[in-house]
């Protein structure tokens, strides 16, 4: 066997070993998609087959109209975009400020920020709820978005801080020489350079907000019309029984948009992470 054939054979053996592993890995997801097209009878007692015998769209209809997934999708888009905007706004300005070399107490601030990462949401939910309610945002998605965005800020702040620290000081000085103030330098010079980090943070937080459960659950308990998709899924669990096929269809409605968004933006995501690590 020549050297080239040996390489091809070795690669194929690896493929042969890895393909079944990949199938096992994606099987639950594919099964969920397949279950969304099955009848309850086929799903519950029909075994593990992936191809529905009697394919139906009834589960999607039920999820979209009866379970109000149309409304929940609009709410989720609103909630996720609000979270992304809040995180980008706060994290980029905070990261920019923290990246400046002479900032007094910088180490303490960064230390506190990092320490807050280890506080579970469950411990802070009551004061957060009281605070958001107190400022009159308890009955809308903006309040929930604020509560979601707050604890999500630490990693983005550090990413922006790392990125801005790596930008040569001369660039800022040149902007100042041209008459730009602090805010204009940030907005016109530094932020456009941070596009890869902006993309990464936006994507990470969009996915996080889209899939969020705990915060939207607590903030929409008293107002079910505000539910997001993650919380809406809960509605398929009855007291004694669960509408599993409806739940599978709802899961498809919830997951597929965010998978599509990720596929479109994965390059930005990789570039952003790589850029932040390099800087």
């Amino acid at each position, binding site marked *: 066997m020549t050297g080239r054939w040996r390489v091809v054979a070795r690669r194929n053996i690896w493929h042969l070993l890895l393909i079944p592993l990949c199938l096992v890995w994606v099987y639950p997801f594919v099964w969920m998609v397949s279950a969304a097209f099955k009848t*309850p*009878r086929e799903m*519950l*007692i029909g075994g593990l087959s992936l191809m529905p015998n009697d394919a139906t769209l009834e589960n999607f209809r*039920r999820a979209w109209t*009866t*379970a*109000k997934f149309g*409304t929940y999708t*609009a*709410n989720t*888009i*609103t909630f996720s*975009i*609000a979270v992304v*905007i809040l995180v980008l706004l706060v994290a980029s300005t905070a990261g920019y400020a923290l990246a400046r070399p002479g900032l007094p107490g910088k180490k303490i601030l960064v230390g506190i920020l990092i320490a807050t990462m280890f506080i579970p949401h469950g411990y802070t939910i009551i004061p957060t709820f009281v605070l958001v*309610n107190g400022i009159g*945002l*308890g*009955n*809308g*998605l*903006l*309040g929930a978005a604020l509560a979601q965005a707050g604890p999500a800020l630490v990693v983005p702040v550090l990413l922006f801080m790392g990125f801005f620290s790596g930008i040569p000081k001369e660039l800022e000085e040149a902007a100042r020489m041209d008459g730009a103030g602090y805010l204009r330098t940030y907005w016109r010079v530094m932020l456009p350079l941070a*596009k890869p980090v*902006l*993309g990464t943070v936006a994507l990470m937080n969009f996915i996080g907000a889209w899939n969020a459960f705990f915060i939207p*659950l607590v903030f929409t*308990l*008293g*107002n*079910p*019309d*505000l539910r997001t998709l993650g919380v809406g899924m*809960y*509605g*398929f*669990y*009855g*007291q*004694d*029984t*669960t*509408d599993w096929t*409806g739940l599978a269809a709802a899961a498809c409605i919830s997951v597929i948009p965010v998978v599509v968004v990720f596929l479109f*933006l994965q*390059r*930005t995501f990789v*570039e952003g992470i790589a850029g932040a690590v390099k800087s």
Partner: protein
Amino acid sequence: MKIRPALTAFTCAVALALSGCNLVGGSPDSGDATGKVTVTVALVPDPPGASQFYRQQFDEFEKANPGITVKVLENPSDQQLNAVELMFQQNNAPDVFRAQDDGMDRMAARGWVAPLDEFVTPDFLKQFPEGSMDPATSGLHRDGKLMSLPLVWGPWSTLRVFLYNEDLLKKSGFDGPPKTWTELEQMATKVSADGKGKYFGYSPTAAKAVGVEMLADTAVPYSVPATGIDYRTGKPATSSPGLVEAVELHRRMQAAKVMMPGWESWDGSRAFKEFAAGRLAMYPTPPWHVAEVRKLAPEIKMGITGLPVPAAGRGAYLPITKSFSPLWSMSAKSTHKAESWKVMDFLASEAFHNAYYKKFGTLTALESAWKADAEKNPDQAAILKVAQESMRRAPNPALATAGGRAMTDALAANPDLKHTDAAFSSIIKNQPFAPAAAKLDKDLQTYLDKTSADLTAKGKEASAKDLTFSGWDPLKDYTPGG
């Protein structure tokens, strides 16, 4: 990759516009420009499909009551109480809400439940089966006041039936279901052996010792498996021979690999799926499994009968501890009580109950709404027959005295003193249950004494006496105060 600010801004604007004012929110509405009163009803869209049903029903109600609009708020069943509590705390309480069983007490304890007596008329009460709205036994009254209205048929919550697959039993040469525990063990052993791993003879309904509790209810007073206390004496009785034998029966079958493998991790709905798939021949269950099996496997030859009893004969009947379970309550903070009552009156009407029965097959609190139809339905007729043959009215300390309620609440708050964990451990580890039961009885007695002392110190009169109904015969109907 380039980020286009204009496109991004446009997408954001469209998305935010999609959900209108949901971003900032608005104040809760209680009326509209036409002068209509809005009654908010917080409910659970259960069973699946109930969302549409409730909306259709309230549309009918609105047509008949043009001055009232019903706004429905739906919550998942295990979040309903939290959601309603939160709404009360935000001064945004629903007018009518669903709070089942202990949930109603939880709400009433905070002063959020309005008594309904001022609205109730003799004609309204006449709809319910005779005697069922007596404050001593209704299950809906607290301190003599009517605090809730029911939805589901009273015996439903404590009735247990025994399901069997006629075809699988026939394959092993059996013509009918087991009548006694001994027959159950013999038949299950034979069926599992014949099934050769494809199907099994028996399984408890779910993990823990739910099956034990169901069978034990035919041997000892219901209070023993439920709380560990024998209400005839007011003393701990986990080591009663009937309960011990129910555990031992399961332990033997588990050790002999007669029971379906994996039952140790089943949730409450797994058994009906296995039964519908033809992998399980027999099991004891709450009655709602019957309709679920039929939905999944309409063609299955399912037999429905009473639970097998000890070989020495029945020692007790399944209990009817209250006529109904609480379900619909009115908010004490409602500013539209008269309109809210109209909604509640509708939810307790024969028309609504009949529609609910027709949609979900549930036997509801108003027997007149479904009895004739149910008797023509073989499954439901069998359930009614089992109920008639195997249930008797039993004492309920929580309804009898305030001390009884305090003591039962205290017992419920300490589930470690129930037999459940010890029995389950005994079955899966193949260890005798009697020593664990004797220890539980000792601990229970200590707990009862301490609870009684603590309550007395707080000025509440409560003791084991409140758990004692010395004249009660668990083989006969109990008459409160009789």
